[in-house]
């Protein structure tokens, strides 16, 4: 019997078959193929999104970006920008795409500022849908957004209307991971209060954020403990830094203040390490799975439904993609079916009655 998650090497025995090496084969193939991941960051300007992305992936993604002045931002519309980089670690290649949303929440009138973002996500889904239904499916590019990090400003008391609207607009299209940005302006007590407040408000407004999958019951205690801690400290309070400072004799990523040094990777200072663990080290593939199994499938079903209803309305439209015709019975057939059903049930009843009579007759005869 093979165990579910770990692969142990077995000493050769007489009943050795050999499929215990399957995980190794999967590992080899995946390393050869390489991975891709699309991460979206959203939030107001000045919350440290670019700095955090740089800290997470230890690179400098935004070399010369132009920051707009306040007067230029009064009526700014939201743009979508994409940066793709190829990074490699221990032979494993990752094609990382960061989607940024400059201008979100910056204008004076922010009604429906989330629309360009949802349009972009839908576009990626649509493109994948088309590719998947095409005839030549060899090189499908997966540009679907796997995770959206939403930055909540720490200066308020909790969620603001713009946060709620954005998260609600995106909850069914992408895995939303809310973060508390610039957490170095909150004392530990304030962080705890704010996290509780945010969790409460997320529940209250019914916002579906990304939930960590429960770990299997046969994991060891330490892993379960880690998992529990991870779940209890959402939303993560993060700090990012582009600079390396000297602290306690080591060179670490941090921010230098007159009153002390904030270390980005110190778990008692902020939840950066937890975020990195969750996002990259343990749950990256789960995020991709949920995107393709859940969000994409929902989108696909909705798309097909709208297409068939349109086709039923206008019979001349050819389906752009091969789909099975949905057998939705119309009113006439339904009536016919009902009629036939009634007939059949009537016949059955009659049959039963006749059988009963025959049976009685038989009984009489036998007596």
């Amino acid at each position: 019997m093979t165990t579910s998650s770990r692969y142990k090497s077995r000493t050769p025995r007489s009943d050795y078959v050999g499929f215990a090496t399957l995980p190794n084969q999967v590992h080899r193939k995946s390393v050869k193929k390489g991975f891709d991941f699309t991460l979206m960051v959203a939030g107001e300007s000045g919350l440290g999104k670019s700095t955090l992305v740089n800290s997470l992936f230890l690179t400098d993604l935004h070399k010369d970006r132009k920051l707009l002045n306040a007067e230029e931002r009064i009526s700014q519309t939201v743009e979508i920008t994409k940066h793709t980089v190829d990074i490699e670690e221990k032979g494993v290649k990752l094609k990382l795409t960061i989607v940024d949303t400059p201008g979100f929440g910056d204008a004076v009138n922010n009604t429906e500022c989330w629309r360009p973002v949802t349009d972009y996500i839908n576009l990626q889904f649509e493109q994948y849908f088309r590719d998947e239904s095409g005839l030549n499916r060899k090189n499908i590019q997966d540009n679907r957004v796997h995770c959206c990090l939403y930055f909540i400003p720490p200066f308020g008391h909790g969620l603001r209307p713009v946060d709620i609207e954005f998260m609600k607009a995106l909850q069914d299209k992408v895995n939303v991971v809310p973060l508390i940005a610039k957490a170095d302006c909150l004392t530990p007590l304030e962080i705890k209060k704010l996290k509780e407040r945010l969790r409460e408000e997320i529940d209250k407004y019914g916002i579906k954020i990304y939930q960590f999958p429960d770990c299997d019951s046969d994991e060891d205690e330490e892993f379960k403990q880690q998992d529990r801690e991870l779940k209890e400290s959402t939303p993560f309070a993060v700090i990012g830094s582009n600079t390396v400072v000297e602290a306690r004799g080591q060179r670490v990523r941090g921010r230098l203040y007159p009153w002390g040094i904030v270390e980005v990777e110190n778990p008692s200072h902020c939840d950066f390490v937890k975020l990195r663990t969750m996002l990259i080290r343990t749950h990256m593939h789960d995020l991709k799975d949920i995107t393709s199994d859940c969000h994409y499938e929902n989108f696909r079903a909705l798309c097909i439904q709208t297409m068939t209803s349109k086709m039923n309305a206008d019979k001349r439209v050819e389906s752009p993609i091969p789909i099975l015709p949905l057998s939705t019975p119309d009113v006439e057939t339904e009536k016919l079916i009902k009629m036939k059903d009634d007939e059949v049930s009537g016949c059955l009843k009659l049959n039963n009655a006749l059988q009963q009579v025959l049976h009685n007759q038989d009984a009489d005869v036998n007596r």
Partner: protein
Amino acid sequence: MASSDVARQPDKGVRPLSLAGHVGFDSLPDQLVNKSICQGFCFNILCIGETGIGKSTLMDTLFNTNFENFESSHFEPQVKLRAQTYDLQESNVRLRLTVVNTVGFGDQMNKQESYQPVVDYIDRQFESYLQEELKIKRSLHNYHDSRVHACLYFISPSGHSLKSLDLVTMKKLDSKVNIIPVIAKADTISKSELHKFKIKIMSELVSNGVQIYQFPLDDETVAKVNTTMNGHLPFAVVGSTEEVSVGNKMVKARQYPWGVVQVENENHCDFVKLREMLICVNMEDLREQTHTRHYELYRRCKLEEMGFKDTDPECKPVSLQQTYEAKRQEFLVELQKREDEMRQMFVQRVKEKEAELKDAERELQGRFEQLKRLHADEKAALEEKKRLFEDDQSSFSKRRAAAQLLQAQSLTANGKKDKDRKNSGFM
């Protein structure tokens, strides 16, 4: 406080004299000071900033007390203002402090009208002062001056630049109130970032023509310190009412896992500078500026709107009374004209209605005549028919009578014949 002349012009007919001894009018400032202390002082601060940015905490820290504050929610549909008045006392000086906070600023999705409630509030305070000034029986020395003397605008510490909402709001307010921008929650910005941030903010304000309050440089005793402070604007502040022990003292500070931010440490933030500038050195100047610059501007605009001018069309100075009289006359003339107009219109309408009614009457009459004629015609026809019928009837009755007669005759003739036959038969 009457509108004071700022600088004394040397009068042409007055010559300066030198005194031979000590007279004693050098105690005039002291007399003034004693009087103001007896009266008590009054100061009004307006704090504008997003919900949760630290306005109430900063006020508590500045005045070293605990104003009753409660957390506002992020879901206010509109911006509101909440004003609270307190009586404070330090040594023998009494201060009536009014703190006005914005509620729900920056939370709405559409913030285009966010500045309006603030502007309305400031205008309302000016208006009530103006009304008091224009009263016939006024008591200005007893009047509780509620005009906003200083406006602390809390800038969010994004580290990049001002937000668009900040720019729009400050532009609307710079001609109505003394704006002092402060960077809130400054313990999230490192020193180098802070320097760049301050420069960016000031350049944005200048390039958009926003006039913030500059500390005055005309008084030599404070000119030097004010100049340096002007260079440190906007002040990066941190507020805290909690005390942490540092060394062997308890100081107001914020305790982090990586260090302690001391509020009153000049190296950590500009709180001490703000307190000095706002309260210790320039409070009186803020009040004066509000009265001589912002209030006078408001008053001028308001009176011009109402139609008052300082000089009439021939460029001769006109007093308020004359203007009032002229306005009243104008108003009465206007009223009379309107009345005449209305009367005329009324008469016109009546005439029209009368004509209409006459027309209708005539029409009705015509129709009546027509109907009557019709009726008469029909009646004549009917009479004719009746006559014919009667003629018929009479001729018929005549014929009937004739026929009956004939019948009767024939009957009697037959009867006779019968009788004859009968009689003959019997024989």
